[in-house]
Each structure stands twice: as structure tokens, then as C-alpha cells.
């Protein structure tokens, strides 16, 4: 929008508004209520509900304010008898065929149609005819559909298309028989549930939460997602100590993700109250013996003794401390403090898939926020697969391209789904991402790099040209494929590409909700990586203290590593491949049970808030670590309060200085950590190193031409999604059931496979 200002007159008052402003936004901004259903900011205009009618002088009919761009001197009336009649009549039309049985509707109590009816509905129903009927059904294990309640605002189809790039649902039928449905009767899509979220009525419903609770019974807690590094803000709905559902509804939450969540954030929460959660601390008194329930005091004392003994026998460096990119900053900070100040070991690390330390150590430009991505002019994506691993980033990219005319350049060995939106796809041979960065580092490397990657050299010069012709923001994103030297070069690329009219912003794509925070807390500064520690068990590493579990890729090929340890203590939610070898298992509280912070891939430090009391005897990770420290004679001074831990973080870690929980209070105003932006670095040695890397790469390799299936990385994000029975169904290819009609409500019992409830089955 331009900075030019024009005058409009609304209800006899003059206002100055920016040129290009949309009338409905202006009216609302100035305090004039305009009812609407179909208008949704940053989605294609629909103009179909006809609720937002206003009178504009010199125009023949009432006008829909959602479609009008203000012009200078425009005279607008938003309230009059004529307008009120029109708006009331639209609501009357919408309710004509509507069941109006809010008490049994899952959306009752948080329904926009219901709210609008309070304001604009009539007292009497003039419609005395028979209502149209359409049967309820499940569209997928996640999405239930009660088409009678639909007002055809098509928010759902638009988010599916514009946010998700899926186009999986569309209206079928015509006129009053129109229903929102699928292509082929069964919804095959990413199951993000955003269509459910934006639906203003009880039409699309969370199939996993149907008839479980009423919204007014739920305590709503604003928190941050515990899955990927995008860090969506969300509302945890709990009742009596049970987490019932997660939504992003912006009436509760107004984070940088708006109403967006992905399948994991929205549906991946059943692990919290899962029956397999650990109930008490467990001690295995004898190697090969059983884990036996213990009290917290016993477990802490036992662990402290064992750690002390190992340190005494082999020296402190024989003790490894392992943090996690899944747990809070507070937890990782406490572990780092424990490693460095209590044990005094130089061997500590977090169980992340890759370390961003080389990137942050050489950071040459600010991190892009997700908002920056939406308004970027050019986006360069090197490796990675955000549509699977950082879905909010993928949504921002799609909207930047389709609603903002940004150019997307994808460098990947696989035609990932985002390629569909790309202005340029540089299809490289597998494993060649480092070569691409080497070429970006200096144009003289382009020819050699192109040969290795199996592309034409002019593809790289075209990419360079797109960047240097950009006016506005260039966002460079990269996945875990880059080695340390390549990360350093990417971190410094801004120095060669920025200009007066062009900002360069960086967006790393780590995998986990607190990958960045684990790095910030110093957990990546240790002498050994997690893999190196595992390789050294039984020799230089004798005991491990682990919060969370090792990743499957860490344990793969190292099945014996944990057995070689003298002692292994683990904080966990469940029994895992790691706890199978543990001498002590300490039940940790999940993100829903604790206070803390996560730092996302924008560097936003966001609050995690306690929604339910810790399940069984679980405790927050930082509290367990502090108890162990106390047992070993060190008072961490945390005074049982997460905010005290965070205060210490802010005092000790420069990027977090000045932050306090109250500063992070408002999720609609997220705070970015202040990372040090370094002076331009001499990159010659990094480039040289990369040159060696590139030279060692093979000269051939098959490029994949297969676009990966939606959801193929669903399980990558750890063991927690494993606890969602519906996810197993999706992993099995989301098979279409014989019948999904639900009248009376036909239950789909999904427990790894589809089972009919005998009592209500039959068509």
C-alpha cells in the first residue's frame, strides 16, 4: 500500500486513509462494525455472502465493502434502515435451510454464524418450509463434514488452495444443493485441518474431537507448537487435566501464523495424555534387570551417586550431557549449566539432526520473519522440504508467490511440491547442495559446479540475475544438507547480494521446535557431537545424562552404543529405544504441562504455557536438572520458577538480553532474539574447503523425477506423532473406507486400522 493519503467520508465523518485501502478494513479500523463471512484478509476475494453491504454515494446499488478500494472523496454510509434490512435479510437467507440446533453442534459457543445471529438475526423465523437435508460424513480421519450448516463462504476451499496448495476440497452441486466436498468422496490431502479452523460454522469439524467437549468447558491456553521450527502459536483447550484439542483460532490467539496450523500442530497432541506416559521415576538397579518404580528422591539420589562415581573414576569429560531441540530453552539452559558448572565436562550436545552453529557464528544478515517471507520479492530455497518439515514457511512461500508475485527459486534434487510455484527450478543431482552454495559463493565456480550438479551453467547465472534484479526483500532459505563451510557461505551471502533497494534476509530450516533455542543456549558448543559421543561410549564416554531420546538416525548402526555405557540417565515421556538401555528414567512433563520458551527459525522467542498439571509424577526438565544439581551440591537458584530460569538466560546470553516473560506476553507482538551480525568475513578458506568437498562429489547420480507424496515426512519429527492413531492410517496411505456416511453419527474408530463400530455401522 502506498504512503499517499486520501480522504473518505464514512457516516458523515472525514478520515484520512492510505491510498489503496480496502473499504471494509477502513470501516472496521475506524470503529464501524461491518458484518462479514466470506471476506478473509489475504485470501482471494469471494464477495458471495453479501453481508458487508454499504451505501456509497453515486453508486446505483448497495456495494459490498469487501470488494471496494477507497477512492478520494468517497462518501460511505454503513448504517441505515436500507442497509440493516439488507444485512438482516442475508442472515435470514443463510439461516433458512440451517438446522439451527446450536446445542448439539460441535461449533456451538464459538461459531461466527451464531454470533452474527445474535447481532443481525430476527426474533421470528419466517421460513416455515421444510429444510434441505444433506447427510453428515467424515471426509477423512481428521475432517468431519456436516453440510447442512454450510453457508458457502468458501473460506475452506480458498485456504486449501492458497495456503496449502492442495485444492483438495471444492463445492459440488449447484444452487441450494451445493455442498463442500472432495474429489472422489474421500479427502486425500495433507490433513492440516486449516479448512476446519477457518470455517465460521459447524460444517467442517475436527474429526478427532467430535462430540468430546463443548468449547465453554475448555480452558484455553496460548502456547507454542512443539513440533517444527516454524513455531506456530496455538490455543490448547483442556478440561480437567486433559488436553482435548488444539486450535489456532485467532479469537484466542493472534500469533504470526494467524489461523494456520499443520497436521502435527493441530492433531499431534494425543501423546500428552496418552496411557503410555511414564508414571513414576524408574531405576534399573542391575544391568539387564528390570526398570523398577522409584520415588523422585531415590531416583535423583541414585543418579547423582552414579554420575559422581563415573566422574571420579574416569574424569568429568567421561560424562556426556545431552540436551534436545524438542525441549524448552529453560531445559537446555539448565542442562548446559549442569554440564559446564556442575560436572565440568566439555562433552555436551543436543540431539538435533544438524547443527546451525556455523551459520550463527557467521551470521551476516538478519533472520527473516514469516511475515518477511510473505512479502518477499525473491525467495531462494536451497535443499530442504518446507511443505513437509516447516509447513508454515511453505504456506508463506505459496502466498508470497500467488498473492504477492514473488519469484521462488528452488534448488533441490527432488521435484518437491513447492516446485509447482517456482519461477525457476534448478534440478540438481542428489547430494549436490554444497556445490550449489559453492557456486553462489563465487560466480567463477559456476561452470564446474554446474557440471557436478548436472545442470546448465546458465541456470546459475539466471538465478544470480533474478537476485540482483530484485527490488525489495530476498529471502535465502536452506535445509540440513549444507556442511559447515556451506552454512558459513550462506550466512555471508548477504554481503554480496544486498543493495540500496534490496535487503537480504536469511531463514534456516532446522527440523525441531527449539533447534534454534538449543543452539542459543549453548548446547551446540560442546567438544563432541551427539554422534561422536555415541561412537565413544565404552571408551572416552562412560556415562550419559540425556534429556529426551536419541534420534533414530543417531542410533541407526550404533545399536550397541548405549549398552556399552556404565550409566545412562534419561528424561522421557515414554519408554523409547533410548530408555531401553537406561539405568534411570525420569518422567518429564510435556510442553502442555510446563512454562517456558521456544525459539523458532525466525529467532522469535515465544512462550510455552502450562495448560494442564504435569501428568502423573512428571516434572519439567529444568526442574529435574536443578534437583540433580542440588543433590550434587550446586544450588541453581531457580527457586522452582521457570521465569527465574529465563531471567538468568537473559542475563547470560547476549541475544536474549533484556527479555523477560512479561516482555514475551503478547503473542501478536513476537520478540526476535538479537543475534550478533558479524562483520564481513574472509570466505576464501571456506570456499577452498567447499572446493575440496565438491571435487570429492561423484560425477554422476540419478535425479529423482518423483514428487514426494504429501505427508511422507510426517513421522520424521519424532516419536510423538506415533501416538496419534489417525496418523497411522495416513501413513498407510489414507485408505478410503467402504462407507463414511454418518447418520446417525457413524463412528470411524481408527486404531492403526479402520474399524467399524458394530453398534452404529450399516448404511
Amino acid at each position: 500500500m502506498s504512503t499517499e493519503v486520501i480522504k473518505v467520508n464514512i457516516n458523515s465523518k472525514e478520515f484520512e486513509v492510505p491510498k489503496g485501502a480496502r473499504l471494509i478494513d477502513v470501516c472496521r479500523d475506524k470503529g464501524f462494525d461491518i458484518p462479514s463471512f466470506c471476506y478473509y484478509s489475504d485470501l482471494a476475494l469471494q464477495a458471495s455472502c453479501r453481508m458487508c453491504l454499504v451505501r456509497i454515494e453515486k453508486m446505483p446499488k448497495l456495494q459490498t465493502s469487501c470488494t471496494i478500494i477507497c477512492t478520494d472523496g468517497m462518501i460511505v454510509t454503513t448504517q441505515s434502515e436500507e442497509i440493516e434490512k439488507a444485512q438482516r435479510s442475508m442472515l435470514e437467507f443463510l439461516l433458512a435451510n440451517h438446522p439451527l440446533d446450536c446445542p448439539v453442534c460441535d461449533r456451538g459457543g464459538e461459531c461466527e454464524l451464531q454470533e452474527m445471529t445474535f447481532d443481525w438475526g430476527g426474533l421470528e423465523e419466517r421460513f416455515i418450509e421444510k429444510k434441505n437435508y444433506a447427510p453428515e460424513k467424515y471426509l477423512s480421519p481428521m475432517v468431519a463434514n456436516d453440510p447442512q450448516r454450510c453457508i458457502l463462504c468458501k473460506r475452506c476451499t480458498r485456504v486449501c488452495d492458497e495456503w496449502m496448495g492442495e485444492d483438495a476440497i471444492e463445492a459440488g452441486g449447484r444452487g441450494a444443493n451445493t455442498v463442500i466436498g472432495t474429489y472422489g468422496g474421500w479427502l486425500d490431502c495433507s490433513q492440516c485441518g486449516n479448512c476446519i479452523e477457518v470455517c465460521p460454522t459447524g460444517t467442517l469439524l475436527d474429526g478427532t474431537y467430535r462430540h468430546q467437549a463443548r468449547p465453554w468447558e475448555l480452558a484455553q491456553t496460548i502456547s507454542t507448537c512443539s513440533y517444527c521450527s516454524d513455531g506456530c502459536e496455538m490455543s490448547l483447550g483442556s478440561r480437567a487435566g486433559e488436553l482435548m484439542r488444539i486450535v489456532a483460532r485467532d479469537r484466542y490467539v493472534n500469533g504470526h501464523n494467524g489461523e494456520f496450523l499443520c497436521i502435527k500442530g493441530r492433531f499431534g497432541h494425543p501423546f500428552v495424555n496418552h496411557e503410555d506416559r511414564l508414571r513414576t521415576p524408574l531405576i534399573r538397579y542391575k544391568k539387564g534387570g528390570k526398570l523398577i518404580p522409584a520415588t523422585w528422591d531415590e531416583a535423583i539420589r541414585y543418579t547423582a551417586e552414579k554420575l559422581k562415581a563415573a566422574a571420579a573414576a574416569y574424569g568429568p569429560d567421561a560424562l556426556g550431557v545431552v540436551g534436545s531441540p524438542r525441549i524448552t530453552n529453560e531445559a537446555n539452559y539448565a542442562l548446559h549449566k549442569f554440564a559446564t558448572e556442575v560436572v565440568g565436562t566439555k562433552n555436551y550436545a543436543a540431539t538435533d539432526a544438524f547443527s546451525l552453529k556455523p551459520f550463527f557464528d557467521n551470521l551476516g544478515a538478519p533472520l527473516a520473519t514469516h511475515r518477511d517471507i510473505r512479502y518477499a520479492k525473491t525467495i531462494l530455497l536451497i535443499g530442504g522440504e518446507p511443505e513437509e518439515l516447516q509447513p508454515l514457511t511453505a504456506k508463506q512461500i505459496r502466498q508470497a508467490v500467488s498473492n504477492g508475485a514473488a519469484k521462488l527459486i528452488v534448488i533441490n534434487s527432488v521435484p518437491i511440491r513447492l516446485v509447482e510455484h517456482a519461477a525457476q527450478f534448478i534440478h540438481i543431482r542428489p547430494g549436490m547442495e554444497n556445490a550449489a552454495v559453492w557456486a553462489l559463493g563465487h560466480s567463477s565456480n559456476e561452470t564446474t559446479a554446474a557440471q557436478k550438479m548436472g545442470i546448465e551453467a546458465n541456470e546459475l547465472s539466471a538465478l544470480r540475475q533474478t537476485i540482483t534484479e530484485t527490488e525489495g526483500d530476498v529471502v535465502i532459505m536452506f535445509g540440513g544438507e549444507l556442511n559447515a563451510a556451506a552454512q558459513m557461505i550462506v550466512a555471508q551471502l548477504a554481503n554480496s547480494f544486498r543493495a540500496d533497494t534490496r535487503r537480504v534476509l536469511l531463514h534456516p530450516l532446522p527440523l525441531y521446535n527449539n533447534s534454534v533455542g538449543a543452539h542459543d543456549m549453548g548446547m551446540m558448543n560442546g567438544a563432541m557431537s551427539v554422534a561422536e559421543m555415541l561412537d565413544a561410549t565404552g571408551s572416552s564416554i562412560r556415562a550419559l545424562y540425556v534429556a529426551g531420546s536419541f534420534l533414530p538416525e543417531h542410533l541407526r548402526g550404533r545399536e550397541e552404543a548405549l549398552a556399552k555405557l556404565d550409566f545412562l540417565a534419561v528424561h522421557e515421556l515414554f519408554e523409547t529405544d533410548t530408555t531401553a538401555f537406561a539405568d534411570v528414567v525420569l518422567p518429564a512433563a510435556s510442553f502442555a504441562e510446563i512454562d517456558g520458551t521456544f525459539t523458532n527459525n525466525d529467532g522469535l522467542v515465544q512462550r510455552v504455557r502450562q495448560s494442564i498439571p504435569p501428568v502423573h509424577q512428571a516434572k519439567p526438565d529444568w526442574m529435574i536438572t536443578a534437583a540433580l544439581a542440588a543433590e550434587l551440591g550446586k544450588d541453581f537458584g531457580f527457586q522452582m520458577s521457570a521465569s527465574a530460569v529465563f531471567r538468568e538466560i537473559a542475563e547470560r546470553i547476549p541475544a536474549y538480553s533484556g527479555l523477560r516473560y512479561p516482555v514475551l506476553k503478547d503473542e501478536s507482538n513476537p520478540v526476535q532474539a538479537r543475534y550478533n551480525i558479524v562483520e564481513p568475513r574472509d570466505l576464501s578458506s571456506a570456499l577452498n574447503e567447499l572446493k575440496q568437498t565438491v571435487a570429492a562429489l561423484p560425477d554422476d547420480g540419478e535425479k529423482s523425477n518423483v514428487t514426494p507424496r504429501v505427508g511422507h515426512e510426517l513421522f520424521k519429527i519424532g516419536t510423538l506423532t506415533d501416538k496419534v492413531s489417525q496418523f497411522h492410517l495416513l501413513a498407510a496411505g489414507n485408505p478410503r473406507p467402504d462407507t463414511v456416511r454418518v447418520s446417525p453419527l457413524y463412528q470411524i474408530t481408527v486404531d492403526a486400522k479402520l474399524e467399524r463400530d458394530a453398534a452404529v455401522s450399516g448404511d
Partner: protein
Amino acid sequence: MFIGAIGCEPLQLARVHLENSRSLDVYRKNGGYQAIKKVLDSMSPDDVINELKKSALRGRGGAGFPTGMKWSFVPKDSPKPKYVVCNADESEPGTFKDRYLMERDPHMLIEGMLIAAYALGAKTNYIYTRGEYRYLIDIMDVALEEARAAGLLGNKILGTEFGCEIYTHTGAGAYICGEETALLSSLEGMRGHPRMKPPFPAVSGLYAAPTVVNNVETLTAVPDIIKMGGEAYQKLGTEKSGGTKVWSVSGHVNRPGVYELPMGYDDMEKFIMEDCGGMLGGKQLKAVIPGGSSVYIMRADQIIGKDVRMDYEGIVAAGSSVGSGGFIVMDETVDVFESTKNLTEFYKHESCGWCTPCREGTDWLVKVFKRIAAGHGRPEDAQLMLDLCDNIEGKSFCPLGDAAAWPIQSAIKRFPEDFRKHLVTSIDSGVST
């Protein structure tokens, strides 16, 4: 069935009675493809548009928008391709003229489209018909093939630098796909929903490129305009309604058919009682819907002795409009409640479902009609229907909503006795004529 001109030399219908009138040969022997030759030999695109403006030709699809003006809205400097799309959806109840024009004289449409394509710089052009007109596509395809073989289509038309293509396409048979923006959505392969205007198709139409959508009869008028000159064409009709107009006459007359009349033909009563052979079985005239179902229904006493001129201004003055020229005559046996119920069922069936008032309003109205027809009418139902129409009219996304409201509004106001019969007590709803 009568097909022919009354009160003027036939232009549109000049060749329809000739043997083999579909063939390129017959078309050429009877003045065909001379207009495009004249255009390519001696006229600039602007010259063509100027002639169109002088001709006072108004779009025959229903809205009556001046064609020359519409063509002049196409931005010449746009780097995008431009398209001419012929609207051959002809789904307005009571309208069947386009079908005869295409069936009997397909080359006239091709020539009109070529001239339009030349004037607008379009290289790709489409003829979009309703699904039920499948057989017309076959006829058009044969004609297009003939034209192509004769160097009248493709590159270097008639040996000049001008070249363009015309393709045919059918919808699936939805009334809404006659609305120009819905037609474009359908042509692009999407659901047939109308799009927001502005931007108008002339600026952003097919594939978001400048597009002119014209009715068949509008385009078939173009060759004659070029041949005789815009001014001469205009003079066949009136100042604001130039040329001749083809009417589809149906209903209770002795001679239904396709009639070409000069614009401003005097008068409607004579047309019905003499030209169309008078009322079937000598019955009394009761009502006329002069312009396809989407216009106000007229009472006989708005026509008899009223000297209604048959052109845009004349029929508006008499209380209705030209619309698509679907002229439906009803005698005294017709129950206007029933005929209006029938039309409302049509609109309900054809409402595309995009917007609230039309989707829900037509559904509700049909239910009210059915309830009344089943004997459960209430005195307040007429008022209810009028109020529902008022809540639709002017508030719907596209004109279909208005089109559904107008027949009911005019029927209740002009034929209250037909509604009264079905309701328990009388309606006092301000009967106006």
C-alpha cells in the same frame, strides 16, 4: 414455424432459406466473406470500431450494451493476448434465435468473428455453446474446417498478414454459463461461477487477458454493418437501437418462429395479432414476456392499443425490456401464478449457488410457490414473496438474482388475481401496471 423478416429486408436471415445454406459455397455466392475482404483490404482496426459505433448496434445477449463501445474498451497497448469469445450459450427461456443462425448460416458467425478478431487484435477466439447444443458444434466445426481449407482461418487470411484461429467449446448445460464471466470460468475449465466485475472482461477476461464476449446475433450483424456502412445499418432501426433484431416467438400464437424486425417496429400488438398470425384458437391475449424470462411480464392492456414500439426504449417505456428477444405470448388460459412458479423453479435450478440471496432466495421462493400450489397458501405469502424478491434484487453477486426476482415481482403486481386465487384472502400489494 415461420423464419423470416417482417418490415425490412432480411439481413440476419437473408440466406436461411437457401438450399445448402450452411455451406461455404452458398455463403460466398450470396455476399459472404466480402466484409472481411473489405476490412482487410481497406480498413484499420479503428475504422472497424468506428463503423460499429456509428451502427448503434447494441449487444443482443440481453444487456443491450453498445457493441462499438465495448470493443473500444479493449486496451490496445496491453502486452497480453486478446480474445474474442462468442456467447452461444443461449440458455434464456424462450430464446432460440442463435441456434437457427448457427444452424443455417454458420459462416456468417465466422465472418463476424474474424472481423471482431481483426478489430481487437485477437489471435485466438472461441465459440462457447451450451451442452445441449452439441449438434451445433458439429455444424460449426464443419464450417470452420471449410473456412480453414479456403484460407479464411489460420495464418495469412485471404493472403494478408492477418491470421487467427477459432475454436468451439461446449459447457455442460448451465444457464449461468451464459453470463459472460461464468462463461469464461467454464471455458477455462473451472466451475461455472461468475466473477467479480470490475475488472470487466474487456480488460481482464479469459486467462486474465482482454476479452470481448458477444452474443451470436451481435457478431452475425457485423458483416452487414461493414458491407453497408455503420450509418446505413443504424438507419434501419432507431437512433439508439440501430439495425434489425431477431425475435424468438413462442407461445399461444398461430405462427411461432424466428422473426427479424427492424428496431423500432411499430407496434407490438400488430406484431402479435397480424405478423404472428394472431392468437391461437382465437383466444384472448393475457400476457407477454417480450425478452426472455428475465424481464417483467406485461399485461395485455399494456400492449393492446398502446402502440408499443419494438426497440430498447419503446419496450422499456411500456414496462418491460428487449432482453434476449425471447417473445413469449400467453393467452387467457394461462395461470400466471403457475407460469411464474415454473420460471422460479428454473431460476432455483440454475442458481449457481455462489451468493447468499440468489441461492437461498430462489430455494425459499420455490418452496413458497409449491406450498401455495399444494393449497397451503396464506394471505401474507404474496407480501412475503415480494419481500424476498426485494432482498434478492440488487444484492446478488450477478444479475441472475435480479432476473429471478423480476418475473415474480411483476407477476404479483400485474396479475394479483392469479395469485389471489391461490391464497386465502386478497392481496393488497399496490397493483401497478
